């Protein structure tokens, strides 16, 4: 059969009247559509149950014991580990640091990511190179980034040298050794690494903004800010929701960079819930207390991210 023949046959088939579907056929199709997919899910679901859910539930049970992570014996202590957490001044400090980090990263990273996305969503020739360059830090492992910035932020490191070179000696600082600013130095490192990641998600959203609507608003006399606020922003709502959720969850769970750069110090000035969980479980031999903290962190992440999702959903951010 020639190509022309097959094309005309396809057109004829498409144009042919569709035979009426009987009620029983419709029912059968609906049943098939409704029932078939879960068979495919079973292997993945059972794998998930074995590898993730069951070990997690087993691990969570230790929060209600006094197990030290090594001994053969453990006693059920009820909620005693959670009560300890409430009375632990280190725990309260870590919660505060965790929230500060999560909020700062969420705001700054997304603001910078959005500005970068708007910048590279343009007609400039080097936009593709810029997109790759700005996204590159996101593919480096957080541990490597932590070591890199720890080195750059030493008292004699590149940052202070650059400041000195440009005559900004007054701004030179002990970035990780000063308890008042070490937390913000870590935030800056995380923002540097993941602003490009946020940028990519915003960029995907920006590419979905209809060009004709933008053009119409331009003809109607809307300036750049009004165009962004009334045309671009509503279209970006899903991207904003995803970015905010990812960055707040990442901020709440942050461990690698903090551990590599300061190990929670100086003193306890950069301790987060994650570093405290690690210290208690593995350095203090207080395993069950560490697990109790991990459960609280999990609840924290779940509540905050769900609340944020619902809130943004009401504003059309989950469409």
């Amino acid at each position, binding site marked *: 059969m020639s190509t022309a023949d097959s094309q005309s046959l396809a057109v004829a088939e498409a144009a042919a009247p569709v035979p009426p579907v009987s009620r029983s056929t419709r029912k059968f199709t609906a049943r098939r559509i409704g*029932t078939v997919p879960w*068979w495919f899910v*079973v*292997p993945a*679901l*059972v*794998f998930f149950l*074995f*590898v993730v859910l069951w070990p997690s539930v087993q691990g969570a049970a230790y929060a209600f014991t006094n197990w*030290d*992570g*090594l*001994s*053969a014996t453990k006693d059920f202590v009820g909620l005693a580990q959670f009560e300890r957490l409430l009375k632990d001044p280190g725990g309260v400090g870590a919660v505060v640091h965790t929230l500060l980090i999560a909020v700062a990263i969420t705001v700054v990273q997304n603001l910078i990511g959005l500005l970068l996305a708007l910048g590279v969503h343009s007609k400039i020739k080097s936009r593709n190179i810029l997109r790759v360059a700005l996204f590159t830090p996101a593919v480096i492992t957080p541990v490597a980034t932590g070591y890199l910035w*720890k080195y750059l*932020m*030493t*008292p004699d490191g590149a940052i202070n040298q650059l400041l000195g070179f440009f005559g900004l000696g007054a701004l030179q600082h*002990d*970035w*990780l*050794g*000063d*308890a008042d600013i070490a937390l913000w130095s870590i935030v800056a490192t995380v923002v540097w690494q993941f602003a490009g990641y946020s940028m990519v998600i915003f960029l995907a959203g920006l590419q979905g903004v209809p060009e004709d609507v933008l053009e119409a608003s331009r003809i109607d006399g809307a300036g750049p800010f009004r165009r962004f606020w009334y045309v671009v922003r509503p279209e970006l709502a899903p991207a904003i929701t995803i970015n905010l959720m990812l960055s707040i969850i990442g901020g709440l769970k942050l461990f690698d960079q903090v551990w590599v750069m*300061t*190990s929670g*110090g*100086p*003193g*306890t*000035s950069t301790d987060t819930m994650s570093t405290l969980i690690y*210290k208690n479980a*593995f*350095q*203090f*031999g*207080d395993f069950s207390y560490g697990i109790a903290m991990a459960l609280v962190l999990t609840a924290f992440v779940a509540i905050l991210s769900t609340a944020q999702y619902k809130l943004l959903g009401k504003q059309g951010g989950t469409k």
Partner: protein
Amino acid sequence: MHKKSLLALSVAVAAALGLTACSGGSSNAGAGGGDGKTLTLAATTNEKPALDAVVAKFKEQNPGVDVKYTTSALDQYQTTTRTQLSSGTAPDVVFVWPGDGNPMATRVVGKAGFLEDLSSQSWANSFPAGIKPVTQYNGKTYSASVTFSGIGAVYNMTAMTQAGLTPPTTWSGLLQFCSAAKVKGKTAFELGAQTNWVTQLIPYALTPTLVYGPNPNFPQDMTDKKATFSDSKWTDALNKYVEMQKAGCFQANPLGTDYNASLAAVAKGDALSVVQVNSAVAAISTQAPKGTELNMLPVPASDNAADTRMAGAAGSTYGVNAHAKNKDLAIKFVNFLEGPDGMNLYAQTNKALPAVPNDSFKVDPALSTLQQYQKGGKTDAFMDQNWPNARVQQTLFQVVQDLLAGKTDANGALKQMDTAYTSGS
């Protein structure tokens, strides 16, 4: 495919996945083989050079025997080995810390029943008085110390000579030394306090003279609740730490400087010394220009030089996994380490002293003073080896950083340590 067949296939695949996961765990448990000819061993990264040497010697003396050993960073080692011990997959021989106060310390792991009782071995009673107790739990020997380590000021004597300065022998002399070094544009004592464990070294260097020498029963007094940190001369030790900082003994940003950077400064001669454990001598030597002379000396804490003592204690220590697949071979290896050949080779390679002093050991000239103090009984065990839980030492790290940052004072810092001391088991 029929619906029932599809369900059966799905369940079979899922079950296979689950069973595969289980069998993976049990095959790991067999690591080492249990064939009587393959010994498995794990230790921290610092021990690697010494292990390379002693393992080669052990294999030479035992043809047909293979030794598989892994080393990892301290944090990772503690986490991994504890997990392996509790899940029955630990190597035959494990590196442990002497005494208590650490998640992988002899008493912690021995108490949990994961270390083999080595009391019947010939060497178990030959340790000096300062080492024997920290290898034991409830009167039984559970670990074998191979080296003796000390804490002191490691001086770059070449840079000292160039600066026209000599190591101080009294507390007043130390403060003058700091001023004189400053005039010469040098840092007297480089301090890498960004690295947690480094923060403890100056208190450990000062308290033998201030606390543990005058009252050797202080650890027992603390156990008996007759003494506390905040109500002892530990207060003097932390106040002297702050005094050193105020006198300009350290570089400008000790909290922004880590362990490696502190050693590099001494190797280059920018700093004249660093208070460190003896392994720093080897680390500085490898970075310093050829011919640089190093010397490890006590840190004076009083104005009577004769009172000065050093922190010196059991160093590299090994235990035999109570559930070892090759227990006989593991005990044979530990016995080799405790013999003069193994012990001296290990100590020589690690730039330490042998746990049991012997005349056939050739001491590194940089450590001759430490050896004199060891032989003269003028050393006191590292303090954490007698603390009841790991939280005390970690609290010390934290409060010293707070102290250097001006966020607390000696009394406040020691009260936190008292709380940590009484909080754990």
